[in-house]
């Protein structure tokens, strides 16, 4: 058996599980007790198949499906294998969580199960497709199934609107990707990726194909300015689906970008890399600045997905700049940094969305300003969420830090570059990356501090329950993933090296692997090294040592009392900072970036309410003008439609005359 057969079989089993969901539509218990855990098991098997494929030789197959004369080609190489590992590993945790989460979601559970598993299977097919035809079919079924998942709660007007925006931008992206394949194809009649790879393109057409693919996949990934669907669609979808979309689906766009640019187009130029780099930097800074202004937890997480996509693009852009200027080793470092961050983001963002789901399920809240003190009711969810929050804030020794560290290392290779302009842009991008990393830390202190710590901000009628067994298992899996990816980076990089060897025929130097599994040293150990395990061990042993010594030498006596707070007698939850308040310094410092609508209460108001919404400027300067223009055009085109048969006959008559006159 070859890895590709395993991958195809498992994806088909997913579709089968979805179909069974319809059969069991009357017995929702069976769906949550059997189908979702079975889906999780398939996911785990798929992850193993992906891991296997990363070091196995490339395997291909032709599926007995598709149109006559146009069968589906599939292929599993290290790049696809890596992304299958990501898909399987993350969706394992999410499916386990879903099994608990959807327990109370009785209506339409059968349909949800179909959409969920078809969504998973279509993502798997996107990753193993080896012709443009299957790729687009899978890409579209991924977009459609996720559209239906986003509009699960379709009774709310806002959710329907969110779904529409998502579908619209997904299709704009799909058209752009399709055109890119068209350009790559160059009129040879064969749409297999092999043919696309062989096609020789002139400089202009290669750049056109790059730009089309970059914006097409960028729209799906949530790159600025095409990110507007993310903060709408993620809050609308059920939480496990948000976790899947943000954790995994955005990554298929990164996969597509890497596949088309590195593999199919080839011959990367540094100008392309610079484009990716600048868009990445803008995306990451913009994403985090808007995340800081949010008080809806899921919207905030969605903006953080935008930010992290920016960080991934910075890694890939650096790699393209280096490859384009003839430094493949530094290019490999950038690519590995980007791909590593792709995996890391999938794991911790999946975890954070599941945490948000656990909060939403037990309290019914999404607004941070109304939460507070949840750590005392949901200790398990609080612990897992803390791991995710520390990981996304790029704090050592968790996983987010490793990939940011690698990205910084790649940017410090800038001295290799000849062009002094590019050489000075790279440090500026590194500065942007540092700034957005630090802002992320601030944002997650806000999220965690406001949601889980402090006092309650609303009247509790029902004591919030902690996450159940299945939900905990799902979050635990992803939290362990954050820890493992953070502590054992050398293994991950060893695997990613296969991907880089395949794509750019160059990997990290031998010296990088020479210092052993404990020390991560991507170039040479004298240049840079990092050992998360030693790091963690030292902090943990100092922790234990201090704890014991203090008790040994002095004492461990403890008294409980009211909080002190400088002797203020009364402490209500209204005196705490809110999520909006916490972001206030940022609002003041970066004021020109935002468009803020505020309602400030009058000073004599007995029940003062402060409301604040931050509007995305992109709507005003980009989307609304385009929408107005489209409306204007369609208004005029609409005049053709008169609804009377005589008018239509006249049109036919005029067309015929015109053809007779002009088409000789």
């Amino acid at each position, binding site marked *: 058996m070859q890895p590709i057969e395993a991958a195809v079989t498992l994806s088909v089993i997913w579709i089968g599980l979805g179909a069974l969901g319809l059969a069991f539509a009357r017995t929702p218990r069976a769906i949550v007790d059997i189908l979702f855990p079975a889906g999780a098991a398939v996911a785990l098997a798929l992850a193993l198949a992906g891991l296997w494929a990363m070091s196995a030789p490339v395997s291909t197959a032709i599926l007995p499906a598709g149109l006559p004369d146009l069968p589906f080609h599939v292929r599993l190489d290290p790049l696809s294998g890596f992304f299958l590992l990501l898909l399987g590993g993350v969706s394992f945790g999410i499916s386990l969580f879903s099994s608990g989460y959807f327990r109370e979601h009785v209506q339409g559970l059968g349909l949800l199960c179909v959409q969920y598993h078809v969504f998973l299977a279509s993502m798997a097919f996107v990753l193993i497709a080896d012709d443009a035809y299957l790729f687009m079919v899978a890409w579209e079924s991924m977009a459609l199934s996720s559209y239906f998942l986003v509009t699960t709660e379709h009774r709310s007007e806002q959710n329907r609107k969110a779904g529409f925006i998502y579908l619209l931008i997904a299709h704009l992206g799909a058209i752009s990707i399709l055109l890119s394949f068209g350009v790559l194809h160059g009129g040879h009649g064969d749409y297999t990726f092999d043919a696309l790879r062989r096609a020789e393109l002139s400089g202009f057409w290669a750049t056109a194909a790059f730009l089309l693919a970059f914006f097409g996949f960028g729209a799906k990934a949530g790159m600025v300015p095409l990110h507007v669907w993310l903060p709408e669609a993620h809050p609308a979808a059920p939480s496990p689906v948000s976790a899947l979309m943000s954790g995994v689906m955005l990554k298929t766009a990164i996969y597509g970008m890497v596949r088309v640019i590195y593999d199919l187009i080839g011959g990367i130029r540094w100008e392309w890399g610079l484009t990716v780099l600048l868009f990445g930097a803008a995306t990451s800074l913009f994403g985090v600045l808007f995340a800081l202004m949010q008080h809806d937890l899921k919207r905030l997480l969605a903006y953080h997905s935008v930010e992290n996509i920016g960080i991934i693009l910075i890694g890939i852009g650096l790699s393209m700049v280096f490859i384009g200027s003839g430094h493949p080793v530094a290019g490999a470092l950038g690519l590995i940094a980007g791909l590593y961050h792709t995996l890391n983001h999938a794991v911790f963002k999946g975890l954070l969305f599941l945490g948000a789901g656990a909060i939403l399920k037990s309290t019914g809240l999404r607004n941070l300003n109304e939460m*507070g*003190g949840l750590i005392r009711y949901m200790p398990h969810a609080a612990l897992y969420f803390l791991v995710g929050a*520390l990981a996304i804030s790029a*704090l*050592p020794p968790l996983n987010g*830090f490793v990939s940011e*560290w690698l990205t*910084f*290392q790649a940017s*410090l290779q800038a*001295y290799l570059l000849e062009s*002094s302009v590019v*050489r*000075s842009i790279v*440090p500026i991008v590194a*500065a942007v990356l*540092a*700034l957005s*990393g*630090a*802002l992320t*830390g*601030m944002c997650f*202190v*806000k999220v*965690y*501090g406001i949601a889980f*710590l*402090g*006092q309650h901000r609303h009247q509790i009628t029902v004591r919030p329950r902690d996450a159940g067994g299945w939900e905990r298992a799902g979050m635990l899996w992803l939290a362990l993933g954050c820890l493992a990816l953070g502590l054992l980076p050398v293994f991950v990089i060893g695997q990613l090296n296969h991907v880089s060897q395949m794509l750019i025929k160059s990997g990290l130097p031998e010296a990088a692997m020479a210092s052993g599994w404990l020390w991560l040293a991507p170039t040479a*150990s*004298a240049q*840079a090294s*990092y050992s998360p395990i030693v*790091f963690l061990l030292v*902090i943990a042993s*100092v*922790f234990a040592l*201090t*704890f014991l010594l*203090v008790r040994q030498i*002095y004492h461990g*006596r*403890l008294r*409980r*009392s009211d*909080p*002190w*707070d*400088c002797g203020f007698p009364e*402490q209500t*939850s209204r*005196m*705490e*900072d809110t999520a909006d*308040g916490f972001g*206030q*310094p*940022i609002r*003041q410092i970066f004021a020109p970036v935002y468009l803020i609508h505020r309602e400030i209460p009058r000073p004599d108001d007995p029940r003062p309410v402060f409301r604040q919404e931050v509007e995305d400027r992109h709507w005003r300067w980009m989307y609304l003008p385009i929408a107005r223009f489209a409306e204007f055009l369609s208004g005029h085109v609409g005049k053709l439609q008169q609804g009377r048969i005589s008018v239509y006959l006249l049109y036919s008559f005029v067309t015929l005359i015109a053809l007779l006159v002009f088409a000789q």
Partner: protein
Amino acid sequence: MNVASGIVFQVLQSVLVVLIAPLMLGWVNQCRAWLQNRSGAGIWQPYKVLNKLFHKDAVLAYNASPLFRCTPYILFGCMWLAVGIVPVLATDLPFAPAADVIALVGLFALARVFISLAGMDVGTSFGTLGARREMMIGFLAEPALLMALFTASLISHSTSLPTIVDALGHRQFVIYPSMAFAAIAFLMVLLAENARIPIDNPSTHLELTMIHEAMILEYSARHLALIEWAASLKLTAYITIGIAMFLPWGIARAGDWFGLLIALAALVAKLALAGAGLALLETLSAKMRIFRAPEFLGTAFLLATLGMLTHFLLEV
């Protein structure tokens, strides 16, 4: 130097620095007192305070979570690791490869995030206020620090501190204009991150102007002692990083036992000088309004980034 003696040396250095860190704080305070024409409490005062605090019973708010109790230990662990990996006396520390300068910045960020979360844990008005302000200072100071360190990294083509010290201190003497920018930016970050004037006042008693102190208002006894000790460790760590990057002369090379003695003397002299300088700076300037702090740190960030650009434009 073989591994065993390396580890002995590593442990010696860490213990030594941890023990003398409060002395550093005492020295700064004493210098400040002299400059302000006071007689001062003596350089041993921080030890007395720590001892007193360790003897007291800890008082904890009813709703304090485990996170609140763990934070002082985590903070202390982070700062111990930080002073353990900075080449203070010699460049061959076996633990030094565990974290390069980027990881060092990450380590400070980890400590900052935990102390801010602990500040928000009990849910008092001052705690959250302090946490918010600390994070505001932090998000500007962290990238500025990283950029200042990157300038040195670019010159030595390495992010590992011992290699940087080797490249800057033990090779041919060259004046780098970019390091001047980095040094000023580093100094500004040092002041902000260690809650010194002009950003914060370590001896303030006015709650509304507090930043660091507001966060730790709920701590008492041994927890407070550990936090205070960690703060003095942080100050020492920053000063020794500054010494390693900008005044690396005198730090011993690998296996040079006689050099170590010179290094010790040089270190004491440099630390004493740095402490006196800090006290002078704090006496000469006044605390600025909290909303001037972003300008101050934004300047530091710009200077550090300019330093990196200068390196690429003038020195390569």
